[in-house]
């Protein structure tokens, strides 16, 4: 097999190392599923994507997304990083407008925004939120998590977007950043409610971001996620539903990951429940070729 283009990209990142890393293998059409899985285990990043020609005429490209353990139908940060890799490699030539990604979850629109103020930012449209359920007294495991916390104004809720997340507001940014999560209790809550875990946020004043977020999914081996695409969309849906975006704004910026040595920047566009976009900058860290001879 000839060498094929390979990039390693940092997503939701204004500077290399701040965001969520991704490996992208272009021109992957002659790789088998087994080879893709072996490569994703070898690169050892949270996700590795493989770009293929689209099978649907409206799509610009097709992508398959693998963690080191398995293939997944869709995830936010791999979608943005893959679109970025294609733009950098000039396999897609667009300055503004929309790209259509074909993946296991269907056709996903990705919007390109370029302005004088910002470097190129990419946004994906998040899956629509299906339900928002307020915390009730009989949710024993959840109550034992939330009774420990200095909560803010809004009530904790279980929100179902593509996946289910518990969402809760912390009293202020300091309380959120200093929080020492009780992983055992969060894990029990997530198992009892068939959810990914817990997203905590706080509103922020006097910063260049309006929200600080931390996401915990210990039941899935992720103590804390450095930059969460889809989970931030469920927070936006919850804020929109509660009316809180009237003061925060429908376009707002999130800071995530500082507590674990990252410093991700995530931009949200949430004007309507069925039209929530999540995005940010991507940095090309490695640009080269992969030579996989097995």
């Amino acid at each position, binding site marked *: 097999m000839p*060498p094929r283009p*390979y990039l*390693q990209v*940092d997503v939701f990142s204004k*500077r*290399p*190392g701040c965001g969520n*890393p991704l490996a992208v293998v272009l021109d992957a059409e002659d790789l088998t599923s087994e080879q893709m899985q*072996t*490569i994703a*285990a*070898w*690169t*050892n*990043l949270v996700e590795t994507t493989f770009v293929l020609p689209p099978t649907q005429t409206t799509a610009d490209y097709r992508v398959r997304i693998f963690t080191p353990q398995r293939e997944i139908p869709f995830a936010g940060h791999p979608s943005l990083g893959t679109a970025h890799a294609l733009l950098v490699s000039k396999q897609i030539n667009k300055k503004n407008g929309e790209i259509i990604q074909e993946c296991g979850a269907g056709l996903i629109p990705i919007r390109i925004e370029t302005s004088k103020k910002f470097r190129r930012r990419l946004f994906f449209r998040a899956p629509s939120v299906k339900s928002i359920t307020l915390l009730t007294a009989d949710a024993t495991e959840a109550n034992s998590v939330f009774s420990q916390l200095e909560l803010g104004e809004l009530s904790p809720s279980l929100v179902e977007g593509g996946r289910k997340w518990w969402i809760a507001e912390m009293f202020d940014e300091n309380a959120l950043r200093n929080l020492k999560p009780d992983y055992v209790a969060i894990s029990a809550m997530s198992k009892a409610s068939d959810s990914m875990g817990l997203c905590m946020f706080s509103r922020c004043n006097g910063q260049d971001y309006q929200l600080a977020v931390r996401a915990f999914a210990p039941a899935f081996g992720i103590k804390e996620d450095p930059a969460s695409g889809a989970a931030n969309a469920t927070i936006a849906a919850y804020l929109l539903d509660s009316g809180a975006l009237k003061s925060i704004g429908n376009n707002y910026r999130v800071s995530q990951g500082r507590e674990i*040595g990252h410093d991700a920047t995530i931009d949200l566009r949430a004007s309507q429940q069925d039209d929530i976009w999540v995005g940010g900058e991507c*940095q*090309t*860290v*490695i*640009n*080269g*070729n*992969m*030579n*996989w*001879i*097995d």
Partner: protein
Amino acid sequence: MTTTNNRRFLQCDVFADVAGAGNGLAVVLESENLSTEQMQAFAKFTNMSETTFVLPTTTLEASYRVRIFTPISELPFAGHPSVGTAHALLESGLIKAQDGKLVQECAAGLLPISVKGDGNNRCISVRAPRAKVIPHAANIQALLNTVMGNMSLGGLSPTLMSNGPLWWCIELASEAAVRQLKPLLSDIVVLTQASDAVGLAVFARCNTSEYQLVVRAFCPADSIPEDPVTGSANAAIAALMHEKQSLADIGNTYTASQGREVGRNGFVQVQVDDEGEVWIGGKTQTVIEGCLSWN
């Protein structure tokens, strides 16, 4: 902070006859002006077991200088990063071996490297730090006995060896006993933590044309339940067999198979030379070649 944005970068697979069979390594070939913090941050980003940074030598005897980082800390020396870094430099034409020899400058000092063969048959070996037997106390023996509860033991006594890191080296009765072992990981955590060991390695002699030893290495206390291919553990095992004059049947030069139980298929070439020094080496595959932007 540097603005250099085109550092040459390779990611290779060490102790591997084909891509994906060995232990991955990221190598930054031009690391001048990267700070220690930037190196550590990049080693965290690659998430390889090790990332190395090549720098100009500070002494005339050295062929190259390297700093070695895991995602969490800097190491003075390690086997697979040394073999892979020498490969990356030879492959990129930045150095040439003199009479099959190179000298690596690293935090542990100047270490000799041997280069044999060409192209896909090239085998690079590094001399491992000299190993010694570490006696263990009676309370440790009880923990060891628990760990060995489900093992079918071989001829040599289980021994704690030090060649920088400390390794428990346990010979099992057969290749099948090694390959089918279900390690008692939580007991290994207790044993290795109580004895300051990095991990526990099991091995057995084999009767195949491909390899003469089978090895598995477990480091659950470092969150690595099983390491795919381990230079230092292989060196510790060779030193133990040499010390116990137990190499007669397989010889002073042999091949070890490691990693099949975790989906890899690594081969380590081991040699105990006339001075009793242990060399570990193997083939390396270049998987990724490109440019790095990191600032």
